[in-house]
């Protein structure tokens, strides 16, 4: 029996994931502002400056912040050990990711060529260090399981996405040959199918049965999913298969993953009447549609509106729904656990982010999607859609901050009670 590096520590300090979670809604607000200010141009083409700006505010801003924060939380469970030096890593990483995302968005939006170079440098450094550090922890781990396999492949995909993206950014900055821009198909495939989809799936193997009380995913499916996607991506990158064929296969895989998840949700004993269930149901329904749409796009290309619709559904329908739903379970749990480690009687998970607040957010989020789905055909809808997206991001921030307030006011109450109880005959009873 070996066991080097195995610590089994329960979780990182809550400040590590939370700082990433709290940063995410600000990117949602910025993306919403792009919709409001420049919606008409945005819905002309997915390659328009505002469309690229919004896409990257959502992917390397909103999504990446939440995903990186969640990774710090998931690794101890999946791999049996946290990330070595995680406090310092998180501290150095976040400014690089936030700065890189802002520079990239500004570069796209205002054609600011230095922004491309700055963002390439920031992401290469930040993601490079992040991927290598996590890889070292995962490598040392003796753990088995589909989640760990998925995480490893997803991290490689993240590195590939950033590498291809960085090269394209440098080409846009005029530092490299423009021929690099032709790799956009691979960049998108590695980013969406490799990093985002495999990561979401790898986390889903853990959290869907845990948070949504479903049966586990079929084991072979879970084990094979990331491997198959990784193999398709590698084959496409090596030129063994056409990017078009790869896209078709990846879109089908995404749709199958979503369908399997929906089936698990449908079969569970408890009805999907809580907010996280609704968010995940919606996210998976959108993912099925995205898969089908992408296959259609590949077989019958040239529908500008359908490509834009796929974008709306991927960013708003899939990513936002799944990530917000996950946060509304993870954040109350980690705050509850933090208090419970010190006190016996603590606020319930629902008191950190109430069911009503979650449900209100869900309906607002759904309204945003309903307004944005037809926007590729009628761009004035970008303004109300953008306003709803802004409010949705504000609500997310307010709910996260509210959860932290509950934590602080509980601690303040305990301190006050201890002080009041201490004077003459000592021994207060918090514990």
């Amino acid at each position, binding site marked *: *029996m*070996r*066991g080097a590096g*195995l*610590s*089994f*520590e*329960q979780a990182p300090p809550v400040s590590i994931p939370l700082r990433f979670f709290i940063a995410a809604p600000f990117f949602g607000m910025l993306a919403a502002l792009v919709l409001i200010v420049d919606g008409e141009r945005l819905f002309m083409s997915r390659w328009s400056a505002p469309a690229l700006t919004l896409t990257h505010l959502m992917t390397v801003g909103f999504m990446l912040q939440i995903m990186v924060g969640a990774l710090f939380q998931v690794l101890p*469970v*999946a791999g*049996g050990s946290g990330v070595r030096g995680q406090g310092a890593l998180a501290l150095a990483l976040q400014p690089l990711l936030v700065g890189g995302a802002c520079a990239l968005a500004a570069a796209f939006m205002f054609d600011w060529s230095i922004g491309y170079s700055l963002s390439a440098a920031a992401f290469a450094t930040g993601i490079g260090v992040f991927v290598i550090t996590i890889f070292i922890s995962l490598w040392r*781990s*003796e*753990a*088995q*399981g589909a*989640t*760990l396999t998925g995480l490893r492949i997803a991290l490689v995909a993240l590195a590939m996405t950033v590498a291809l993206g960085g090269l394209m950014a440098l080409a846009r900055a005029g530092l490299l040959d423009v021929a690099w821009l032709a790799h956009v198909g691979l960049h998108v495939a590695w980013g969406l199918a490799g990093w985002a989809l495999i990561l979401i799936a790898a986390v889903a193997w*853990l959290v869907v*049965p*845990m*948070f949504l*009380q479903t049966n586990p995913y079929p084991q072979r499916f879970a084990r094979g999913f990331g491997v198959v996607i990784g193999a398709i991506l590698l084959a496409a990158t090596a030129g063994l298969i056409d990017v078009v064929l790869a896209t078709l296969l990846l879109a089908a895989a995404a749709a199958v993953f979503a369908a399997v998840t929906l089936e698990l949700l449908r079969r569970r*004993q*408890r009805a999907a009447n809580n907010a996280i269930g609704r968010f995940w149901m919606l996210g998976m329904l959108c993912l099925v549609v995205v898969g089908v749409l992408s296959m259609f796009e590949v077989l019958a290309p040239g529908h500008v509106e359908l490509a834009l619709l796929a974008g709306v559904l991927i960013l708003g329908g899939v990513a936002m729904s799944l990530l917000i739903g996950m946060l509304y*379970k993870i954040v109350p*749990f980690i705050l*509850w*656990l933090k208090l*419970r*480690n010190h006190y*016996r009687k603590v606020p*319930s*998970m*629902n008191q950190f982010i109430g069911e009503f607040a979650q449900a209100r957010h869900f309906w607002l989020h759904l309204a945003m999607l309903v307004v944005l789905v037809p926007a590729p055909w009628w761009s004035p809808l970008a303004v109300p859609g953008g306003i709803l997206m802004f409010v949705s991001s504000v609500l997310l921030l307010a709910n996260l901050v509210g959860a932290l307030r509950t934590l602080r006011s509980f601690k303040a109450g305990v301190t006050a009670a201890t002080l009041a109880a201490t004077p003459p005959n000592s021994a207060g009873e918090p514990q």
Partner: protein
Amino acid sequence: MTAHQTITALMQSHHHQCDEHLRQAQAFARAADPGGCKHAFARFRDDTLGHFAAEEDVLFPAFEQASGMSHGPTQVMRGEHRQMRELLEDLEAALADDDLDTWAELVQPLEILMQQHNLKEENILYPMCDRGVALMPELIGTLDEALHVGADHG
């Protein structure tokens, strides 16, 4: 004697048995049936406590002996057992007052804690034990017996 070939398989199937009792208790709680909930919860609690005891008395000492790690993973697992035992007590107290709302609130974090805990054991600790089991071929049988004794004792 156990039908399971590995420690992982034996312990995993016992985890699932515990999960099943907990799901039943939750179903009764949703149906506002305190009697049914108490009954199912008692079985869940007994099985879970029996599971903890079998690990702490049989499996963990064997792991510690074979790996030489007495302050590593098993220490953390024991700490998590203690945390879950406290939650089980709080859940029982809520049921004693027929307070299904408090019970349902407390059962949420227990479920997550327990799933996280089980995953770490199933993906890491048990497979490590299986790799070392050649040293103690009788361990699976002893563990299986302990699981049942533990359950009988509650």
